[in-house]
């Protein structure tokens, strides 16, 4: 079978084996099926991982999470709220057509068009004008200075698409024609997506692979067995499964801290959660370490609203008083708030994710100690999303991506007007802080704003921020050049097989 | 034995079962199970219906009790047409019209004790209080020869003959006037059959019952009945007082029927008329006389014309072209 061949190759002629001998085909197993391929309307990670290989944006992050150019060679800022991008010349879409400033303009018009119903339209809602200044030059004008603009542009959904392709196909759900290193070949629903090398890619020697095959394998045990037998080369795994593979010689486990964190969200309009003392009490009744140990097998970091993987932006929450488990004080807070005997409530969570269900079960036990009797209600994903957006649950357990700019984590989720503030949370002081953060261009100053905002947020506790897990990728021997980063866990541009 | 009062009169009774087919349940054809028969039964008389399997004897009996709704015709009980009654009203009348069934095994609910089985008719018709019921049950049980201990048992603990006694008790406990016995002894062994027949005859005398006795056993029929009707393919072929019928059968069918009875005497080998062929399907009866396909005397007229059912002698009725001239 396949696997004995590959492993045999590896053992016998390890170093002098040239690349040409090995089929440059990478097989990756994923736990979710892409929901669609339109970068402008499909936020699902399972889709992003595919279309981000096919499409590119104006700018991107480098390894250090610094914004660097991608389709934009460079950019200049005549003033704080104007950006002029100079595009790379000679870039072609996979259909052969050249990519120009007109395409950039079209892409952003499409994003901002209400008819598109793009999920990232709000990222660029403060763009007042876009102007093509030449075939390879384009200008963006903003309402006011916005520190997040460039970061927002790095989002995979801010992809440059071809007007012609959109018009030919109506939408981009089933097709993908971009400027990226890989060409979309085929999507067999619920089974696989195949990409192939774009021979005319404008960066030399990229990509190294001839073909990438993504397989949807929802069952962890199937992925596990497939990576063991060499049916696939790479897959994401849970912490628990990655432990199982530790001993396997031909499999390397790579991990990286994710940008996600788990949280407990409260409907802050509703009793008893409209009293911040209650929320604080619950925070103090929560043993985050044991969540790390039991739910994530020890491989997670206690997190605030900005995940630790965001580096300097995040504060060290471990020392915060409100993160220290203190049953007595929690009880005292409850008593102050008028619940000396605790109360009963319902924790809602999504049945789709085991870690959420597990977290709920732990919290249920932990909160019992301060007299809070919680029932768990698991709902299925479609229902969950609905519950989330309608704030129809009192307590919701979930996971958030803290994004790549602190503005998302702070402003978007908790500003009174924030589009993802489903918690009915409102605090004027806090709103001012995050507004300031968005406007402040100076990095050091901006950081200080967010440190204060985070501390404020922890005190207000509209959510209890729990832990930020690690992500794991299992890779078989022979796959070279793969390094996952928090902001780009699946970069395969430079991957090849040996 | 019988009085002259006509207790039950059946006039031109027809029962056609629709033969439904297909899923739209369109009625394609009718089984003419009973196709226009008339007879009357006098009080305290035993009238028997004989004939081959499928000729419509049971259907006649069941139609009288409205266990099937007849297609047309009249059924007069004591002068009133019972088909005019509403279902609910007729249920009350059922007290007077009872039935004893052929199969002593399947006609008693296996999950009820004898006592419950006997109690049910009393309670249904509210004829007496519970205490009275007890004594009536004991009374009837004793009449049919069941002991006091036995009435707390379930039917499966009894032999066939005993079960038939339970069935009889159940039918008679309401003091009915007319009892329809549909093959009431056919399923029993000869000597048990004799016990039951004796019982039935005794009870008839005691309780002044009127019997409609349905059977294909001509020996038994001869023994119990006052008058006999011979049916063939849903029609009455011949009707006469018992002795007249057995000694002087007029219809060729009756003749062959009687000759086919195995005689229980090896010394008297009688001449037998062996009929050819089988009873036709009542869904597709032959034209003309229903018997013509098997009749040794069939002629052209029989093909085209169904013979009239007429009284050829005193109280001797027959439907056959052979007797057309005997006006």
């Amino acid at each position, binding site marked *: 079978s396949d696997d004995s061949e590959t492993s045999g190759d590896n053992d016998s002629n390890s170093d002098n084996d040239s690349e040409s001998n090995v089929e440059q085909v990478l097989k990756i197993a994923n736990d979710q099926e892409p929901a669609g391929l339109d970068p402008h309307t499909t936020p699902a990670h399972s889709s992003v991982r595919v279309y981000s290989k096919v499409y590119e944006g104006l700018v991107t992050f480098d390894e250090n999470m610094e914004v660097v150019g991608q389709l934009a060679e460079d950019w200049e800022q005549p003033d704080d709220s104007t950006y002029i991008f100079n595009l790379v010349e000679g870039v072609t879409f996979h259909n052969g057509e050249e990519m120009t400033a007109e395409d950039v303009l079209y892409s952003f018009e499409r994003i901002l068009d209400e008819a598109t119903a793009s999920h990232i339209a709000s990222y660029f809602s403060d763009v007042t004008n876009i102007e093509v200044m030449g075939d390879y030059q384009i200008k963006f004008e903003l309402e006011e200075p916005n520190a997040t603009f460039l970061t927002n542009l790095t989002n995979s959904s801010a992809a440059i698409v071809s007007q012609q392709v959109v018009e030919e196909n109506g939408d981009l759900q089933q097709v993908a024609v971009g400027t990226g290193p890989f060409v979309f070949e085929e999507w067999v629903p619920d089974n696989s997506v195949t990409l192939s090398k774009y021979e005319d890619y404008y960066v030399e020697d990229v990509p190294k692979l001839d073909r990438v095959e993504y397989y949807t394998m929802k069952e962890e045990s199937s992925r596990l067995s497939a990576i063991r037998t060499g049916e696939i080369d790479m897959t994401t795994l849970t912490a628990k499964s990655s432990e199982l593979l530790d001993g396997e010689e031909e499999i390397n486990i790579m991990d990286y801290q994710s940008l996600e964190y788990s949280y407990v969200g409260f409907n802050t309009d509703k009793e008893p959660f409209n009293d911040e003392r209650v929320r604080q009490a619950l925070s103090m009744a929560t043993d985050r370490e044991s969540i790390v140990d039991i739910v994530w097998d020890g491989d997670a970091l206690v997190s605030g609203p900005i995940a630790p993987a965001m580096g300097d932006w995040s504060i060290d929450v471990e020392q915060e008083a409100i993160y220290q488990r203190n049953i007595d004080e929690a009880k005292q807070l409850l008593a102050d708030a008028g619940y000396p005997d605790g109360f009963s409530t319902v924790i809602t969570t999504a049945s789709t994710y085991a870690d959420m269900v597990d977290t709920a079960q732990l919290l249920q036990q932990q909160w019992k100690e301060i007299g809070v009797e919680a029932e768990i209600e698991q709902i299925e994903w479609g229902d969950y999303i609905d519950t989330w957006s309608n704030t129809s649950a009192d307590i919701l357990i979930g996971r958030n991506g803290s994004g790549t700019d602190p503005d998302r984590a702070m402003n978007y989720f908790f500003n009174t007007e924030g589009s993802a503030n489903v918690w009915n949370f409102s605090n004027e002081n806090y709103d001012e802080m995050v507004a300031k953060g968005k406007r402040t261009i100076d990095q050091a100053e901006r950081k200080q704003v967010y440190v204060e905002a985070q501390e404020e947020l922890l005190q207000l506790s509209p959510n209890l921020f729990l832990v930020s897990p690690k992500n794991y990728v299992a890779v078989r021997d022979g796959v070279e050049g793969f390094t996952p980063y928090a902001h780009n866990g699946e970069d395969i541009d430079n991957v090849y097989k040996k | 034995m019988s009085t002259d009062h006509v207790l039950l009169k059946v006039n031109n009774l027809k029962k056609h079962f629709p033969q439904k087919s297909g899923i739209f349940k369109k009625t394609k054809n009718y089984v003419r199970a009973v196709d226009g028969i008339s007879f009357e039964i006098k009080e305290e008389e035993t009238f028997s219906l004989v004939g*081959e*399997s499928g000729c419509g004897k049971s259907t006649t009996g069941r139609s009288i009790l409205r266990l099937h709704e007849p297609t047309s015709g009249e059924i007069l009980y004591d002068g009133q047409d019972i088909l005019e009654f509403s279902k609910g009203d007729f249920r009350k009348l059922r007290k007077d019209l009872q039935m004893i069934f052929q199969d002593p095994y399947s006609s008693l609910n296996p999950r009820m004790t004898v006592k419950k089985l006997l109690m049910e008719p009393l309670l249904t018709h509210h004829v007496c209080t519970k205490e009275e019921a007890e004594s009536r049950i004991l009374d009837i049980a004793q009449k049919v020869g069941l002991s006091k201990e036995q009435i707390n048992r379930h039917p499966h603990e009894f*032999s*066939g*003959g*005993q079960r038939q006694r339970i069935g009889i008790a159940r039918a008679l406990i309401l003091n009915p006037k007319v009892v329809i016995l549909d093959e009431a002894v056919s399923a029993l*062994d*000869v*000597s*048990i*059959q*004799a*016990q039951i*027949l*004796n019982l039935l*005859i005794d009870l008839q005398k005691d309780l002044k019952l009127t019997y409609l006795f349905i059977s*294909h056993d*001509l*020996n*038994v029929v*001869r*023994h119990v009945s006052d008058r006999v009707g011979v049916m063939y393919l849903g029609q009455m072929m011949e009707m006469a007082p018992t002795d007249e019928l057995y000694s002087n059968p007029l219809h060729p069918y009756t003749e*062959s*029927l009687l*000759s*086919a*009875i*195995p*005689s*229980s*005497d*090896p*010394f008297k*080998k009688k001449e*037998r008329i*062996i*009929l*050819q062929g*089988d*009873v036709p399907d009542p869904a597709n009866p032959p034209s003309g006389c229903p018997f013509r396909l098997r009749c040794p005397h069939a002629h052209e007229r029989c093909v085209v014309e169904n013979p009239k059912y007429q009284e050829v002698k005193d109280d001797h009725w027959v439907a056959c072209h052979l007797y057309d001239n005997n006006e």
Partner: protein
Amino acid sequence: MTTLLDINDLSIDVEIDKQTFNVVNNLNLSIKKKQKYGIVGESGSGKSLTSLSILSLLPDVLRVSNGNIVLDKTTDLTKLSKKEMLNIRGNEISMIFQEPMTALDPLFTIEHQISEVLRFHGRYTKKQMQEMIIDILDKVGFAQPKKLLKSYPHQLSGGMRQRVMIAMALICKPKLLIADEPTTALDVTIQAQILDLMNGLTEDYDTSILLITHDLGVIAETCERVAVMYAGTLVEETTVKELFRNPTHPYSVGLLDSVRSLGDKSQKLYSIPGNVPTPTELNESGCRFASRCPHVMDICLAHDPPLFPIDEDHTSKCWLYKDGGEKE
């Protein structure tokens, strides 16, 4: 006349819930060539079991516990291997059953079912078989046998099916035809037809008949010799005429009385009191009829009587005839 089949001391036991009961006890009878032999008795007296045991067709729970069944004075049927028995069935001895409605496989054509007998017992070409089948169907009185070949059992009436059964039973010209209540389920006129047919055909084929029935009239019309069975035992054995003229065993007497009294309206019907005991109710020792016998004596309760000869052609299993001959 030479003997065709000898049943010697046949006993059959049944096992119910791990307990063994005797259902046929020390039965002896012998059928001569070309003879028409009848067995009568009430329901449950063991008639069917006796006939089934001849061809080893007893259901699993039942087995022959004693005695043997000898065909042609040479072959002990109870000792035959399964394979040898297959050769006897349908070939040397064939059998027809009470219920014509259920005795044929509903899924196969009449031709197939009759031709099976030929295929099991000989080598014929298709054409030969078809000819033979048409021939026998013609003999059993079908006007258009060719049309019948492709019909299925459900398209035939009870009488027709029974005739098919007879055709099937006779097609291999067996030495013995066992007919277990062949007409009980049929109407009188059809019964007359079938009995007539059996009588005629077996004569043509030199086949002996073992006719089982509970109807004394049928015996009287068809058979030469008769055995009366009661609760698994043979109680009287003689010629048919002798039985009717001079029944000796109180059970036979009772049986005849109840049949004959049917004719007489003025009198009460005669009936033997009580019921045939079920195998579980049988008392071990003593005469099985004792509980219902009008002449019961002490000895009857204590000891089971043997078959006493009444005269050379007549035996009776009753203590009354301990000394042979006349009733006391």
